[in-house]
């Protein structure tokens, strides 16, 4: 150990924490090194002074405050056990009552939620029920094989009509302020994929029809006049204008649009959605040339209607007529007629 090492060991030397050999070396060095002896003296004095610093007293309340905190913790621990274990032994009847109560409430909620689910399905069921009588006469004729095809188109269209029906029924008592096109909007949206398809496939002249509204306008304004509706796009465009020009024919325009939409979205067979198809919607009022013979048909007589509409369909020269009933804002296909052998004859429809 050199001088520096010994200087650093002096602190340990004072605490008698050095080994016997170290102690001997240090003491030997101290005899000759005045610096180290002085340093040792000062260090001893410093430690002495540090030890003389008086201790502070703990406040009288300290122990009781600590114990209060400890007891508080203990209380929390106990209440923890009370909460989770004691009820098992003491509050069993209360628990039983609580479980029973929850069970009853659960059953009540369950039974009240179920009808809600039923209601949401009901309009569809009702609609098919209402349609049933109209379909009855056709039962004697064998059903065509296009049933599955129709089902695909029918499903969304029925829904859209239901929605429309519900919506307009509630709004009916008020005088209508908004254009009629606003109300059928959801219905249009529902059938959008089908329409898109139609626009692409068959109504190649639709843009043209859009571009020439003025000739159609007077016809629409006239209450007895038949309206030329060429494609769904034209129908959408024409209706609001008719409404703004002649509010009296508002209902008529709305009905015509509903019928046209029903035809295009529901009743028009897929096989007919080809290029070269055109159709027009007429109101079947007194004086209409078709009224005379149509009113004698069974499908006409079986159903009382607010209004009847006929859609003239021309598929590359092959003509047919779709007779519709519009009653309380509901659209119903009554019958389909085809022009064969110089006469109109009813053809089966599902």
């Amino acid at each position, binding site marked *: 150990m050199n001088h520096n090492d010994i200087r650093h060991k002096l602190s340990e030397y004072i605490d008698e924490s050095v080994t016997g050999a170290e102690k001997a070396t240090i003491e030997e060095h101290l005899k000759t090194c005045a610096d180290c002896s002085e340093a040792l003296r000062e260090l001893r004095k410093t430690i002495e002074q*540090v*030890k003389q610093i008086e201790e502070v007293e703990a406040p009288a309340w300290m122990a009781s405050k600590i114990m209060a905190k400890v007891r508080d913790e203990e209380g929390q621990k106990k209440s923890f056990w009370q909460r989770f274990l004691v009820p098992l032994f003491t509050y069993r009847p209360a628990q039983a009552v609580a479980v029973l109560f929850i069970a009853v409430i659960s059953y009540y909620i369950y039974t009240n939620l179920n009808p809600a689910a039923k209601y949401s399905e009901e309009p569809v069921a009702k609609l098919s029920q209402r349609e049933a009588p109209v379909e009855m006469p056709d039962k004697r004729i064998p059903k065509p094989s296009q049933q599955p095809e129709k089902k695909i188109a029918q499903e969304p269209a029925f829904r859209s009509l239901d929605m429309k029906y519900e919506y307009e029924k509630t709004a009916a008592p008020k005088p209508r302020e908004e254009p009629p096109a606003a109300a059928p909007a959801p219905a249009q949206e529902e059938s959008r994929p089908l329409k898109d398809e139609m626009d692409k496939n068959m109504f190649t002249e639709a843009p043209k029809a859009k571009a020439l509204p003025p000739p159609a306008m007077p016809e629409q304004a006239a209450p007895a006049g038949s309206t030329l509706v060429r494609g769904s796009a034209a129908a959408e465009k024409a209706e609001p204008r008719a409404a703004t020009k002649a509010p009296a024919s508002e209902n008529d325009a709305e009905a015509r649009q509903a019928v046209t939409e029903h035809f295009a979205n529901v009743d028009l067979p897929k096989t007919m959605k080809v290029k070269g198809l055109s159709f027009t919607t007429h109101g079947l009022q007194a004086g209409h040339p078709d009224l005379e013979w149509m009113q004698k048909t069974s499908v006409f007589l079986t159903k009382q209607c607010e209004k009847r509409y006929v859609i003239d369909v021309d598929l590359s020269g092959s003509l047919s007529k779709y007779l519709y009933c519009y009653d309380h804002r509901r659209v119903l296909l009554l019958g389909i007629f085809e022009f064969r052998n110089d006469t109109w004859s009813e053809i089966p429809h599902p």
Partner: protein
Amino acid sequence: MSNSAEISPAAAFDVDAPLVAAARAGDLQAFESLVLRHQKRMLNIAFRIIGEYDDACEVTQDAFVSAWRNLGAFRQEARFSTWLTSITVNLSKNRRKRVTLQQARTPRSLDAPVRTDDGEVLPDPPSGEPTALDRMERQDVKNRVQDCIRALEPDFREVIVLRDMQDLAYEEIATALKLAIGTVKSRLSRAREAVKECLKKTMGDRS
């Protein structure tokens, strides 16, 4: 090796052992006895590390509550007092850090009175004289020693507090501070040297 300071204190008989055992079994009175036995020592350790009496009181309470909470985890490898010291030192160090941060963040006016051991005095703007030393010279030796300890770095202050003020053995200090004994020895040596130099400066030749 005849090293008295390195005899394991854990191996030595712990006078607190029976009370600790009772307290662990939930005996609050036993724990209260331990509180009464050790509160002054823990308060002094906290006070010397933090430097503020009120903070030291709070920390001491927290240390005992923490000890009660963790009594189950105390494996009696060390003495109860050593274990308690360890808790107190840790809490004190954390508190001191917080206090120092708060003081550093608090904006201080240069003209505002400064709190000293003599009460509040107006700060003396720098003159030719070393004012801090001037003030210290007016204090008695004890205050100067305290100031010198307070001026130490926290790591050095801890060892000198535990060794020279609380008379803990090296081994106990090492356990309480979770340090190697060699580190304790060297820190203690440097701490004592620092205090010695500090006192020499403040007291001049009169020492």
